[in-house]
């Protein structure tokens, strides 16, 4: 047995590499299927089984692996097929049938089925690589490096790629050296606030009380955000290693991962990873033969958004109702069980080992003066290529949304005439909601803002944890604000007056406006409520709750006014202000598509055989609009209701 810390890790690494080689991955090839939660919901488990079945039937010895998420949600299920003599090739949009035929064609007939391939993962002379497409070319993967590349349930994959090197680095050095290294990397907490990570660590380390605790905040609750989940499911050991490094550095012997219950796969993967780390001597007593101990407990949250707030999270671990407490005292001074506690987000902790291994300078060379490194965004909503992107700080929002995300997707409607091409309608970008329900809605004018904690904050939005929801011309600004406020009001812990009652009043006013019953005085009241809630609330959930309203009021005031003055929803989204209408000039007599689609039998045939809608019966479900063949396009939405042409009764 090796005597030094480094020697013990090298031994583990040799064993890890051997495990990979001995089982024939290099000689016979391997197939890596992305089976994180997002992949599974797209059907990747079925694809995985199809691969296994095909390999068995054809007697091919290639191995199959579950890997995490590549971050390209739009192309799920995805798999990388690596065959000796070929570069590894990434395939997207797989189905079980395609998987079976891919194995047959590639392994038996030497045909890599390039029509399903997104590109090669390595430079070669045969196949264009994925790095030639803008999404891959502009992304800079530092934090997500291992996501989709390693099997999260096999510690050997992580160790073979240099994993736990950051831990060995830490064990070999003084704690102050580790903090210095983090300081020179310029890393700021990626949970949303952007507090200097080294400063937090230094405060905790300087606190002489003991015991101390490390907490990993994995209570990701923003609608449309899934970065933390992906990291937990794809690269769990990076988080564990980050936590151990934090524990060793500040002098804590136990840590908690507070992960929400709605992430069952992340919970089970983390549990397994903790067990494997313990078995390898990387966690528990005498880590890597040193005299240092550290233990990790996985703690499941009960699904409360507010528990992402650090003081509420601590209360929840202590078994109390998750309610925030006033700060100071900050957790670094008085946290879990009244002891000094270091709380960091999943992303921050997962970055630590990578920074220590690759060097602070490497990390600091990315990004801007004030924000070093990379930012990870979860893009959702009206975006062509939804998924995770990692870009250096300083990239513009336009770059992320249009160059990497492909912009706003057109609406494609299949024609009902055989052989006709589908008809596509282009949609215009309207706004991007950054930072989830605590963030703001930014219109096109802000697209050239370089991404950084401070620049985003100046616009009225917040960086938050990195959720990005893209809205197009069909999304109403008032309705968007109402949606997010409904979320915060529901998730308010109910402790303080401003958040509990104030956001309820804001929600009621917004609901009233979306129903066309608002007044101009309501806008002043909204502004007054928003400003007092921002100042008066106890925690950041309350303080930031008015952000979606404040930003939409500032940037989309004309829409609010249209709802109030004209009872018109310019985006034709607010149901109470729109009506569906069949344009007689466009309606095709012989077609009955809309009639069959209506769930309430609101559509009738007039005497002249044209169709019309009985507004009394209509529930505004949009079915008829979708059913109407695109070459007629006869069903339209009308707002305000007064614009609705009268339908003549005798035509019935």
């Amino acid at each position, binding site marked *: 047995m090796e005597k030094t810390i480094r020697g013990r890790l090298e031994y583990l690494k040799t064993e890890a590499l051997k495990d990979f080689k001995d089982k024939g991955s290099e000689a016979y090839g391997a197939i890596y299927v992305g089976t994180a939660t997002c992949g599974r919901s797209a059907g990747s488990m079925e694809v995985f089984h199809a691969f296994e079945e095909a390999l068995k039937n054809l007697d091919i010895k290639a191995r199959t692996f579950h890997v995490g998420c590549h971050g390209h949600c739009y192309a799920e299920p995805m798999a990388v097929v690596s065959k000796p003599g070929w570069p590894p090739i990434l395939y997207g949009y797989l189905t079980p049938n395609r998987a079976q035929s891919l194995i047959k064609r590639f392994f038996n007939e030497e045909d890599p089925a390039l029509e399903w391939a997104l590109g090669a993962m390595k430079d070669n002379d045969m196949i264009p690589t994925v790095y030639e497409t803008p999404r891959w070319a502009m992304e800079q993967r530092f934090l997500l490096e291992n996501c989709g590349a390693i099997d999260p349930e096999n510690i050997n994959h992580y160790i073979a790629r240099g994993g736990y090197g950051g831990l060995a680095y830490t064990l070999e050095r003084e704690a102050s050296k580790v903090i210095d290294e983090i300081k020179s990397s310029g890393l700021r907490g990626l949970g949303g606030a952007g507090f200097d990570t080294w400063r937090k660590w230094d405060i905790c380390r300087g606190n002489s009380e003991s015991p101390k605790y490390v907490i990993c905040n994995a209570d990701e609750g923003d609608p449309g955000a899934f970065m933390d989940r992906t990291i937990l499911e794809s690269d769990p050991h990076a988080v564990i290693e980050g936590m151990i490094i934090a524990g060793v550095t500040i002098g804590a012997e136990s840590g908690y991962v507070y992960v929400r219950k709605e992430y069952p796969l992340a919970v089970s993967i983390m549990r397994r990873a903790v067990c494997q780390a313990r078995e390898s001597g990387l966690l528990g007593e005498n880590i890597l033969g040193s005299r240092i101990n550290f233990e990790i407990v996985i703690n499941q949250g009960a699904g409360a958004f507010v528990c992402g707030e650090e003081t509420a999270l601590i209360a929840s671990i202590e078994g109390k109702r998750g309610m925030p407490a006033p700060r100071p005292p900050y957790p670094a001074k008085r946290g879990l069980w009244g002891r000094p506690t270091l709380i960091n987000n999943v992303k921050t902790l997962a970055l630590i080992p990578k920074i220590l291994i690759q060097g602070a300078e490497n990390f600091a060379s990315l990004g801007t003066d004030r924000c070093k490194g990379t930012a990870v965004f979860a893009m959702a909503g009206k975006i062509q290529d939804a998924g995770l992107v990692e870009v250096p700080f300083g990239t513009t929002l336009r770059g992320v949304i249009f160059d990497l995300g492909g912009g706003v997707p057109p609406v494609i409607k299949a024609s009902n005439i055989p052989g006709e091409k589908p008809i596509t309608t282009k949609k215009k970008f309207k706004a991007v909601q950054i930072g989830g329900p605590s963030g703001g809605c930014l219109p096109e004018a802000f697209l050239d803002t370089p991404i950084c904690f401070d620049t985003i904050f100046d616009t009225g939005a917040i960086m938050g944890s990195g959720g990005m929801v893209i809205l197009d011309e069909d999304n109403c600004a008032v309705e968007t604000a109402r949606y997010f406020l409904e979320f915060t009001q529901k998730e308010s812990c*109910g402790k303080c*007056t401003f958040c509990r009652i104030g956001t309820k009043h804001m929600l009621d006013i917004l609901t009233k406006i979306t129903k066309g019953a608002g007044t101009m005085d309501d806008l002043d009241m909204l502004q007054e409520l928003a400003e007092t809630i921002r100042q008066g609330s106890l925690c950041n959930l309350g303080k930031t709750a008015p952000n979606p309203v404040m930003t939409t009021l500032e940037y989309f005031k004309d829409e609010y006014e249209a709802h109030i003055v004209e009872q018109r929803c310019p985006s034709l989204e607010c149901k109470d202000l729109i009506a569906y209408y069949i344009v007689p000039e466009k309606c095709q007599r012989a077609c009955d598509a809309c009639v069959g689609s209506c769930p309430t039998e609101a559509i009738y045939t007039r005497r002249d055989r044209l169709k019309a809608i009985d507004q009394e019966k209509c529930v505004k479900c949009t079915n008829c609009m979708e059913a109407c063949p695109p070459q007629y396009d006869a069903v339209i939405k009308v707002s305000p209701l007064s614009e609705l042409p009268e339908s003549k009764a005798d035509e019935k």
Partner: protein
Amino acid sequence: MDTVSLTINGKQIVTEKWKKILWAALDNGIFIPHLCAIEQRPLPFAACRLCFVEIEGRDEPVTSCTEEVSDGMVVYTRTESVLRLVRMGFEMIMSRHPVICKDCPANKNCALQEIAQQMGFKLKPKRLLQILPELPVDDSHPLFTYNPNLCVLCGQCIYVCNEVLKKEVLDFNFRGFMTRVGTFQDRPLADYGCDSCLKCVEVCPVGALSIK
């Protein structure tokens, strides 16, 4: 005893070190509205958000129940920005609290009435619509009544029941606007092992908990 000297509304005050501004002011006859504060409580609850004051040199008003006094501190309790917050906070509380003083067990002994009188506020909210949840009254206990409609969620009853007496009968239930004080699973008080110490009734600043 260590003392510090500070000014509140121009009045020179000498008080103990570590004291919070709220208690220093109240000890010296300066009224600051408050519902949830308990001086003995080791960590302030800071939920009612009514005790805002302005400290010279700070950008925004702060809650006086969480801020410690310090030497030379200059505090104002009725500046424009303080009143804006307190007025709105009080109006919010009153928008969920039926103004039925004549029929209320706490009439003339009510923290809300006192705040309105001292601050010159109206009890009925002017700018906000009243949203009254109309929850069922718990009349199951032989000695006292709990009317959640009158409750202002100050948490004082929960603090004495859980933290001081360790009886753990009461806690907050539900979320958002529907948050209310209740027993585990919101069962009637009589079914829940309450031993009738009546301490919760004693601390209730309004008429939510009252003797029969």
